[in-house]
């Protein structure tokens, strides 16, 4: 695609309206995590929209229509590309948008426009399609090592079952305590569950979607959906908010019809099990714990209460809240596939999360996202403040084991 081609062909009608709807009021800067750590308005949400409007004007404006689109200002393209890829796509700007722009969906689509022109993705994001093609995961790790390093002994995985568990690439390769906790808790609930063989449990497509590299999405989605359908799955359980997000929102689009199963985040399944009495924690935990809402679980798919329900089933705990919580949670820095490109930003955001948890005198920081888990742990290295970081299912599984 040439730079002189329209910048809005890939956008939905709603997104085209959204580009025009921004009032440039700048209120969203107060909640933008990138702004909090960079203080750079050039990469702020309204500035991204202003620059994108300039690009649209250059290709679709009256002058371009009458005289043809000329050469687009290279600096504008580069500045916009940097701004759009530095974003963590956490969606806090959209949550606080005075006109209700759905930025968590808009930014990835604007990234796609840059990818189509060869201006994105950036850094290691470029290697993801080839890695997924070769190994099934964006980390380019051997597919046969997807489960073996963390999968607990004694867990029975059914060949076919109404419930399936999808571990996800980030959990399986970068957050082992989390996925280990998931299967231990599923085992404790007692319903048989199935999993795909490691070489068949390929990437859900989210890293490609979020970086604007959409070419392989349809193939990945169809491959996964058909594999679960062949195992008679009616409920697909996953703990990664990013995977859950693309499964619930976009898999039906790329599959072309309604999915043959429903998607559930693991905290929904576990909260139900506590509610029905099938799961009970007897061990008391006399600790102050603070729960961080992952952006793609809260603003992404609207799950904010089930994780808290799960934690309230632990006898003795005192549940604390971040100042910005639930739908207004602050990104820990791991989102938008920016964490490995804009590393310093991600570290600084992760440390803001740690600092607030320490300031509130929490004994444990509870996470429920593998990317958050990996990044906040990394941010704590060489940081002067320390806290015990635990995944929610890791915590529950540990307490269930104690009795």
């Amino acid at each position, binding site marked *: 695609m040439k730079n002189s081609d329209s910048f809005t062909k890939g956008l939905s009608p709603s997104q085209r309206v959204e580009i025009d709807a921004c009032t440039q009021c*700048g209120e969203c800067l*107060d909640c933008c995590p990138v702004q909090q750590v960079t203080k750079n308005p050039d990469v702020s949400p309204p500035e991204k929209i202003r620059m994108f409007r300039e690009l649209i004007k250059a290709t679709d404006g009256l002058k371009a229509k009458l005289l043809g689109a000329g050469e687009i200002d290279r600096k504008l393209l580069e500045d916009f590309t940097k701004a759009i890829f530095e974003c963590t796509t956490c969606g806090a700007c959209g949550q606080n948008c005075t006109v209700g722009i759905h930025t968590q969906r808009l930014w990835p689509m604007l990234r796609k426009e840059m990818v189509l022109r060869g201006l994105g993705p950036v850094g290691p994001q470029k290697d993801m399609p080839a890695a997924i093609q070769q190994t099934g995961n964006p980390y380019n790790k051997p597919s046969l090592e997807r489960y073996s390093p963390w999968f607990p002994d004694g867990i029975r995985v059914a060949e076919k079952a109404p419930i399936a568990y999808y571990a996800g690439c980030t959990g399986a390769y970068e957050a082992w305590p989390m996925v280990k906790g998931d299967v231990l808790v599923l085992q404790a609930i007692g319903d048989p569950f199935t999993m795909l063989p490691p070489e068949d449990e390929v990437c859900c497509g989210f890293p490609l979607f979020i970086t604007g590299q959409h070419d392989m999405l349809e193939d990945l989605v169809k491959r996964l959906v058909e594999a679960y359908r062949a195992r008679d799955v009616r409920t697909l359980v996953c703990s990664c908010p990013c995977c859950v997000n693309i499964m619930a*929102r976009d898999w039906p689009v790329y599959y*072309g019809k309604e999915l043959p199963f429903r998607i559930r985040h693991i905290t*929904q399944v576990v909260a139900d099990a506590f509610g029905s009495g099938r799961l009970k924690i007897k061990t008391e935990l006399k600790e102050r714990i603070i729960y961080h809402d992952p952006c793609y679980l809260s603003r992404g798919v609207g799950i904010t209460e089930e994780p808290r329900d799960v934690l309230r089933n632990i006898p003795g705990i005192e549940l604390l809240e971040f100042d910005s919580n639930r739908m207004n949670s602050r990104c820990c820095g791991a989102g938008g596939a920016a964490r490995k490109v804009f590393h310093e930003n991600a570290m600084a955001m992760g440390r803001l999360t740690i600092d607030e948890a320490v300031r509130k005198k929490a004994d444990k920081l509870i996470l429920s996202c593998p990317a958050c888990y990996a990044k906040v742990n990394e941010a704590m290295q060489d940081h002067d403040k320390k806290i015990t970081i635990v995944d929610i299912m890791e915590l529950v599984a540990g307490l269930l084991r104690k009795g």
Partner: protein
Amino acid sequence: MGLVLSLGFYAAFLFFVVGYIARMLAWARYTPLRPFPEKTLSLSAFLSGLVDILLLRRLLSVNDVLWLGEWVFHASLLVLFLGHLRYVLDPVPAIIAAMEIPARVAAWLLPASLFYIGVMKIIVEKKPYVSSYNFMLLGAMMVSCVSGLLMKYSFRADLAGIKHFTIGLVTFHVVSLPGTLIFLFHFVVFLLLLMSLPTHMFAAPLTMIEARQREDELRDLMHEE
């Protein structure tokens, strides 16, 4: 001069209308990837969105200090717009005639709210992002307000002559311009504003309604029965 200004008015109006028709056609252009399942707007989302538009509720939830100025600004602008319709309607409908007193109040509230917004954004809250385009508009609005007030209270403009000219504009009968310089200034600023109205004027109400629909859908996305 009347002919020049009339042509300027038609050009500005055409620019505004054609610009928005082109924009709306661009909004509705075919898109290859359709959402599945296709969504339809619910009545409750539409009504909630309407309340959001009328009260600027989303702004209220993030910045109540600025909301006060913005709401007064938008309400005053609407009242003034309705009040100004008496210059292009003959006979003047009772409802428009009844707007005269509110419009007089709005004529003072509008510049006051603009001043309040500017002070709050720049001096009190020291916003890190300030749109130069918005401030250009704010300045032009302020100039328009002040010239309007001067016309009303200081220069005592020839209202009958002005109405004769504006009725001529909308009925395509070009008449000579009333000999008031301040009206000429006020009218030219209005034409400039008409050509540079922000795109959010029509787009933002649509996104506000869509946002309500999206919030409803988000509740059901992972919690369907």
